[in-house]
């Protein structure tokens, strides 16, 4: 140390070892400071994590609840079936525009029956409270049950997203002043209707299982279709990347000779692991869509792109698992007359399987959360309202995926969609968490230490 050499030229002062001198104090303080930096860094990292998670939870839980209006709608025969013959084709001719007034009348009736003082006394005024989806809901009911025309039927319909936002504390009286969709009087009316039980907030299963809705109907949008899209994509990824990854790893670990070709494969795998995900999107666009003419936006293409992205992860973990199987297993198998191929497939691979599956699940979890390549192959920008009709349609018809749907919601102008985006993230994270926990359990329970 330089200090020591400087000091040694001076005559040594006599100090007791039990007494800390200036320099020792300084050094100890530096030590404590340095340690503090470390603790501060860890704390900062953990604080970021906590902030991130609380932000997600506090913003997203609202999406799982939705405001509903329960009201009795009179299915007026003079509007819905003018000919009175209950002919299904005649009934189908009445569009949702014919149903909207019925729903509005029903709500108006609730308001006047309850004797609520409000300046909103016209049927048209009720429009702001009711979701545009309500008319379609009633129409679907009537077409399914034409004999109920003329009855008064109780419906649970969606409230408009502004009303929903008001009850969730997202929309305020000040903020609606410039909003042409709703006025402060409407909010007063909602306040009066809540204690009557006409307007209430409930758990909304449709957010998890439902389809996406158009830009103006945030209250109706759900993640279900996108979830199916992700599911089909993951099927493709699992079906391709597991066999290919395992085959590659077996070749590289057990059979590959030391030569240029093997080196080339190894270099390529490690490079692919580091290529930005967006580049895989470009590859998918150029090769699968432009060159091979596979359908745009299809989960099949998304799955293919994600397979290529996931392969390095699976290969790396599978190779580690194969490496961990001791050579004595191979030697024993070869010793009793198995061929090399038999030794690998009958003995080494089954023993490595827990490690392989763990790696595969982690790879799948990564693929499930990946967004950027999906943007380029067209899995955003349209509204995923149709559930796939079967297996082939699930793979080949345009669909969205969970992260792509979240991105789509985040881009829409209505703040009601931001809540949906956060809610979608909660669902996505629940999936990722489940997958990772399964991976950890697999590792804990089945991994053997030799």
């Amino acid at each position, binding site marked *: 140390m330089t200090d020591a050499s400087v000091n040694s030229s001076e005559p040594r002062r006599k100090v007791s070892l039990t007494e800390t001198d200036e320099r020792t104090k300084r050094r100890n303080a530096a030590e404590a400071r340095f340690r503090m930096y470390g603790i501060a860094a860890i704390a900062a990292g953990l604080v970021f994590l906590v902030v991130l998670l609380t932000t997600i939870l506090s913003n997203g839980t609202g999406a799982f609840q939705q405001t509903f209006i329960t009201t009795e709608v009179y299915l007026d025969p003079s509007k819905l079936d003018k000919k009175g013959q209950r002919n299904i084709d005649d009934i189908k001719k009445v569009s949702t525009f014919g149903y909207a007034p019925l729903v509005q009348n029903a709500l108006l009736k609730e308001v006047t029956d309850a004797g609520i003082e409000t300046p909103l006394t016209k049927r048209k005024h009720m429009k702001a409270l009711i979701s545009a989806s309500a008319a379609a809901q009633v129409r679907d009911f009537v077409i399914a049950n034409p004999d109920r025309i003329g009855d008064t039927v109780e419906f649970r319909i969606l409230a408009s997203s502004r009303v929903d936002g008001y009850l969730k504390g997202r929309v305020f009286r000040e903020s609606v002043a410039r909003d042409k969709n709703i006025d402060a009087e409407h909010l007063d009316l909602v306040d009066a209707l809540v204690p009557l039980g006409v307007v209430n907030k409930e758990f909304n299963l449709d957010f998890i299982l439902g389809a996406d809705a158009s830009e103006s109907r945030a209250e109706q949008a759900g993640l279900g279709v996108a979830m199916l899209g992700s599911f089909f994509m993951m099927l493709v990824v699992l079906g391709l990347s597991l066999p290919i990854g395992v085959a590659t790893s077996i070749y590289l670990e057990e059979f590959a000779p030391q030569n240029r070709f093997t080196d080339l494969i190894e270099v390529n795998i490690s490079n692919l692991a580091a290529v930005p995900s967006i580049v895989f999107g470009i*590859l998918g666009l150029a090769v699968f869509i432009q060159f091979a003419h596979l359908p745009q936006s299809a989960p099949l293409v998304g799955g293919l792109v994600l397979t290529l992205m996931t392969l390095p992860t699976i290969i790396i973990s599978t190779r580690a698992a194969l490496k961990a199987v001791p050579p004595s297993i191979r030697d024993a198998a070869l010793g009793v007359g198995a061929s090399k191929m038999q030794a690998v497939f009958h003995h080494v691979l089954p023993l490595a399987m827990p490690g392989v599956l763990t790696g595969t699940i982690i790879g799948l979890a990564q693929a499930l959360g990946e967004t950027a390549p999906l943007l380029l192959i067209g899995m955003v920008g349209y509204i995923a309202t149709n559930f796939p009709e079967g297996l082939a349609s699930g793979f080949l018809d345009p669909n969205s995926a969970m*992260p792509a749907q979240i991105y789509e919601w985040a881009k829409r102008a209505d703040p009601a969609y931001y809540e949906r985006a956060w809610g979608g993230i909660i669902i996505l994270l629940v999936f990722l968490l489940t997958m990772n926990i399964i991976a950890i359990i697999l590792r804990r329970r089945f991994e053997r230490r030799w």
Partner: protein
Amino acid sequence: MPVFWLILSVLGLGGAGYVAGRQRALASAGGDSRNLHSLPSYYGSNLFIKTVVPAFVLLIIWLLVQPFIIENRVIGLIPTGEIAEGSNINLVMAEVRRTAEGLDNIVALGLMDADEARNVRADISDVTQRLKEAGQVVTSAITQPILLAAQEYRTSSAAGSLYMTIAVFVLAIAGMLFGMKETHRDFRARNIVEASVKILLIAAASIAILTTVGIILSLIFNTVEFFRLYPASQFFFNPTWLPSFGGGLDHDGNPLSKLGILPLLWGTLYISLIALVVAVPIGLFAAIYLSEYATSQVRSIAKPLLEILAGIPTIVYGLFALLTVGPMLISIFGDGSLGWMKAGTAVMTAGLVMGIMLIPFVSSLSDDIINAVPQAMRDGSYGLGATKSETIKQVVIPAALPGIVGAILLAASRAIGETMIVVLGAGAAAKLSLNPFEAMTTVTAKIVSQLTGDADFASPEALVAFALGMSLFVMTLGLNVFALYIVRKYREQYD
């Protein structure tokens, strides 16, 4: 026969071959499998391979080649006069394919019988009308040559797939017979089967190479195409990024769009720099604390918790930047207080959030590297009377420095290639500015916006994305190779 059923029936034939092969081998050994060279199932598998593999190879080749041949034949039928001004043969061919498809569908719907679809000649307008009525997409009115070409296209495709079915079946059966003939108790079935499995393994391993080749080819072809339409010097040195909406040329013949990569590179590097300024100190100190100070209990809790940050998808960080960090920064630096920041999307927003994302990346890599420094070096330092922090600062870190630099470079390559955070958090304006509170954009964000926009795919406005992707690929690859080189060189010192 549709390809799907063809594949299924060939597989079925293969399955039959498996059973037959097994039985034949056993029969040749007098029912005692001990007299066979290989296990009975290997004889079955051998027959399965002989049946299925050549047939499928033929099927794939046929499916790849047939469209080219048919297209060449059909192109010959289209008179050159038919190709309109400003159009080209490819567009006409697309029209032919659409018409043929429309005819197929209309027959499938039962609106026209097969003979009629093959022979309708006279009334063109009637065909167009009927196609439209059946809900088939037909752009312009179909002209006589296009209809003729479409009919030729249909008949040749139908004939082609008929021949294909026959050929594939014949080959499958021939393969099966050949396999049957060689199945005998002394035949070395296992060697054949295992050699085939090995070929399959090598093919799987080659997919990694194919992917790289695919990436490079798709980038290079489209980049070259872009540079044919747009001067390379403009792309690399023009300091403005301003794609014009419709594309096109000005009166001097220069493209209207200004597609200079410089502002995008600047935005990318600036955001990455801020991300590294956040991530490197925190990540490095966290790694030092975890590897040198923390008890094993603290370590076993803090390390996985930090790594959760790495497992969170980037879309979550993007949303966090857009909806939480952006508004928060506005309330601190925005118009209300300091007035530096105009909008929530800015270099600072994206940089901060990306920094958070990179913390576990830097910390776990540095952790590994610090742990790799031999304990003897620390002990030597303690023996000379150094405190723990002095040992770390003057012995451990210098020894681990190349590895740490490598880790930082890897983190930088991550930051450069990150997409979702910048798409949502950094804004869309391409600017060359030093103010970190201004919106800027990056290479990745522009790749997304150019390829998801409305631009025609053959226009320089869309093709520029491939040139950007190429630059990105080269940058990240270079950084990675360099980083791995440094890390590897360092690791060799202590092994």
